[in-house]
C-alpha cells in the first residue's frame, strides 16, 4: 500500500468520471429524476373518491347524508336514482364506489332498523380497501351527526357508540403524507444504483477495454486499484445522497429528526457495502452486460422490492421473509426511516449498523480476494 500511488489512481478515476457522461447522468441526474417522479408522482394518498349515492326516494335523511358526502373534500359524490344506474357507473369506471340507501330511509332510521350497503370496485384492492374504509367511517359519522342534530331522537338514544369516537394518529407522519415514506426508499435505491450498478459497470468496462490488463502490469497493488475506484464512487454516492437529502428536506419537507452525523455514518456504511458488492460483481462478470444484469438481479431489485420500503416484509410468505434477512437494504431502510422520521433510537441504530458493519467487512474481504492481479 502506498498512499502516493493511491492518490495518483484516485486522480485518474476522478478525471475519468468527470468525462464520462454516463456516470454524471447516473450520479447526479438520476437521483433528481427519481426523487421528482416518486416524490410528486407516487402517492398512496386517497383523494377524490368518486362515489355514487343511490337515493331511490328523496327524504330528509337521505338528503342529509348525501349533503355530508358532497361537502366532504375527499369525495366526488353524484346522486343517482336506481340501483342499476349505480352499478353501471361502477362498471364503466365512472364511479369507484357506490352507496345504496334503502327506501323509506327516514322511517327506518327512526325505527333503528336500517341496512345500508357500500360497494367498492376492488379490482385494485389496496386503494379499494382504503376507500371502503373511508366511506364506512364517514357514513357512521354522518349517521351519528344526524341523530345528534335532534330530529331523530330515537336513534341517538339507542346508538351504542354515541359518546365515543375514534381518533387515529399516524405517529412520525401526522399529516399522513406518503412522500415521507417513499423518499427514504428512493434514497436507498439511489445509493444502490450508484454503489453497485454504476461501480460494476465502470469496472467491467475497464476489463473490457483492456485497461485492467495494463494496470496489472504496473507496480500497482490490486488493493490500491480497488480502493481508488471505491473512493471516487463513494464521493459520487455521497454527492447523490446530499442531493437527495437536500431535496427531501427543502422540496418535500421531510423532517430529519435524528442526528445528521449518525445518518451520514449509516449511509456511508451502506454505500461502502454496495461498492464492495459492485466490485465483486464486476470481477465475476468482466463484461458490461453481464454486470448490469447481475447487479440488477443481486442488488437493485432486492433493494427495491425486498427492503420493506414498498411492501411490508411481515406480510410476505415465510420463505421470502427469510430471504430478506440477507438483503442489506432491509437494514438500511429501517435505519433511514427511523433516523429521518423518528430520531435517534439507539437499539435500532445499533442493530442495523451492527449488521451493516458485519456485512461490509465480509464483502470487502471477498472483494479483495476476488481481485488478484491476474486475468
Amino acid at each position, binding site marked *: 500500500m502506498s498512499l502516493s500511488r493511491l492518490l495518483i489512481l484516485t486522480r485518474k478515476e476522478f478525471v475519468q468520471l468527470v468525462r464520462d457522461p454516463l456516470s454524471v447522468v447516473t450520479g447526479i441526474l438520476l437521483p433528481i429524476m427519481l426523487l421528482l417522479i416518486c416524490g410528486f408522482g407516487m402517492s398512496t394518498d386517497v383523494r377524490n373518491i368518486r362515489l355514487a349515492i343511490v337515493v331511490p326516494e328523496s327524504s330528509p335523511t337521505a338528503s342529509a347524508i348525501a349533503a355530508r358526502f358532497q361537502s366532504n373534500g375527499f369525495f366526488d359524490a353524484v346522486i343517482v336514482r336506481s340501483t342499476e344506474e349505480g352499478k353501471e357507473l361502477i362498471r364503466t369506471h365512472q364511479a369507484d364506489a357506490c352507496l345504496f340507501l334503502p327506501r323509506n330511509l327516514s322511517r327506518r332510521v327512526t325505527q333503528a332498523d336500517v*341496512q345500508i350497503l357500500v360497494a367498492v370496485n376492488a379490482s385494485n384492492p389496496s386503494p379499494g380497501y382504503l376507500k371502503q374504509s373511508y366511506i364506512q367511517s364517514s357514513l357512521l359519522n354522518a349517521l351519528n351527526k344526524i341523530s345528534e342534530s335532534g330530529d331523530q331522537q330515537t336513534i341517538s338514544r339507542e346508538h351504542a357508540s354515541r359518546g365515543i369516537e375514534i381518533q387515529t394518529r399516524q405517529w412520525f407522519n401526522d399529516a399522513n403524507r406518503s412522500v415521507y415514506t417513499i423518499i427514504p426508499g428512493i434514497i436507498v435505491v439511489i445509493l444502490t444504483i450508484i454503489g453497485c450498478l454504476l461501480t460494476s459497470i465502470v469496472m467491467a468496462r475497464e476489463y473490457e477495454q483492456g485497461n485492467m490488463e495494463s494496470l496489472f502490469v504496473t507496480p500497482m497493488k490490486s488493493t490500491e486499484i480497488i480502493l481508488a475506484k471505491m473512493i471516487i464512487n463513494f464521493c459520487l454516492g455521497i454527492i447523490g445522497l446530499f442531493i437527495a437529502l437536500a431535496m427531501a428536506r427543502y422540496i418535500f419537507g421531510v423532517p430529519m429528526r435524528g442526528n445528521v452525523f449518525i445518518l451520514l455514518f449509516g449511509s456511508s456504511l451502506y454505500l461502502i457495502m454496495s461498492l464492495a458488492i459492485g466490485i465483486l460483481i464486476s470481477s465475476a462478470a468482466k463484461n458490461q452486460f453481464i454486470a448490469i444484469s447481475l447487479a440488477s438481479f443481486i442488488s437493485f431489485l432486492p433493494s427495491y422490492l425486498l427492503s420493506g420500503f414498498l411492501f411490508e416484509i411481515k406480510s410476505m410468505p415465510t420463505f421470502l421473509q427469510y430471504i430478506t434477512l440477507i438483503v442489506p437494504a432491509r437494514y438500511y431502510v429501517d435505519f433511514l426511516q427511523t433516523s429521518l422520521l423518528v430520531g435517534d433510537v439507539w437499539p435500532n441504530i445499533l442493530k442495523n449498523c451492527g449488521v451493516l458493519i458485519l456485512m461490509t467487512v465480509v464483502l470487502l474481504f471477498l472483494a479483495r480476494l476476488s481481485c488478484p492481479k491476474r486475468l
Partner: protein
Amino acid sequence: MRILIRVYALLIKELCQLLTNPKVRMSLFIPPLLQLIFLGYAATMDLKYVDCAILDYSHSPASRELISCFTGSPTFHVHEPLVNEADMRERINTRALQLAVVIPANYQQAEMGHAKATVQIIVDGRSANSAGMALAYATNVVNNHWLEKAAKRNRIRIETRAWYNPNFNMQFFMVPSLLALIALIDIMLVSALSIVSEREAGTFDQLRMTPYSSLELLIAKGFSTLIAGGCQLAVGLAAAMLWFQVPFNSSYALLTALLLSFLGSSIGIGLLISTLTENQRQSIIVMYLVAVPFAMLSGMGTPLESMPDVFQQAMIINPMRHGIAALTRIFLEGATFWELRHSFYLLWGIAVGSFTLAYFFFVHRRNDG
C-alpha cells in the same frame, strides 16, 4: 412475391436468433417466470400480520370485549398489554409494535352513553403503505364491534361489498400488472437492442447490402419481437391462471387483442430507441430512463388517481398505464371491447406513432450513415 420471400427469410432469421439459442431462450422465459412468481408473492400491499398492543386504562368488561375483537382478528397479533405511554412510545420506536390502541378510563361509561370518550389508534407512520392500511383495518375492527353491539338493540347495519375481488386479494391485481411490467421491460429491451446490436456486431452493414428496404427491415424486426413477446406472455399468462388462480371473466380473443396491442406499442417505443442510439450501452440506458418512470407511474405501485393531474396527463403516452388498466378490467371485471375502446385506441396510437417516428429516423440514418 419476392418481397414476401425476403421478409419471411428475415423473420425466420430473427426468430432463430431469439428462440433457437438455448441461452437466449432461457433468458426470455425463465427469469420472467421467476420474477412473476417471486414478485407475485413479494408485492403484497395487503396486510397479513400487524404487531399490536393495547393500553387499557378502563379495565372494564366493555374494554375487554373490545380487546377480544383484536385478539380474534387474524390480522392483528396482540402482544403483552402496554403499561403506560412511555412503554408504548418505546415499543413503537423500536418497531416491536406497529400499532397501539389506547382505551380511555371512562370507556365503559361512554359506551353506556353517560360520558364522552375517545379511543385512540396509533400507528407507526414509517412503514410506507402499510400504515394507512393498518389504521383502516383497526378502525374497521372497532367500528364493526360497535355496530354489532348496536345491532343487538337496534338493527342499523352497514354492509360492505368488494365487487370484482370480494376478498381484496392483492395478487389478483398484482399478477396481471406484473405480466405487463415484465413484458414491457423485456420486450422493450429486446426491440431496443435489435438494431443497435447488429450495428455493433457489424452485421448491420451486411444487412444493408442486401436488397431489403427500410420498411421491410423494421417490420421484420418488430414482427419477430412481437412473436417472441407473445410466447413470453403466453407462458406468463399460464402461470397467472394456473399458479395464482387469477379469475378470468372475459373472452380470450379480447385478451389476445389487448396483449398484442400492448406489445405493439412497447415494441414501437423500443424500435424508436434503437434507431436513435449508437451502441448497446446507450440504448440500454435510454431504455431504462424511459421504462422506469413508465413503470413507476403506471398505476401498479400507487393508484393513478392519487397522482397529480400533470402526471396523469403526461402518462397518456405510457403504454403500461393503458395496459394495466385494461388488463385488470379484462381479468377481473369481464369488460367488453366497447368499454375498453379508449385504452385500445391509445395503445394503437402509441404503436403507430412510435413506429412511424422510428421509420422516419431509420430512413434518415440509413441514407446518411
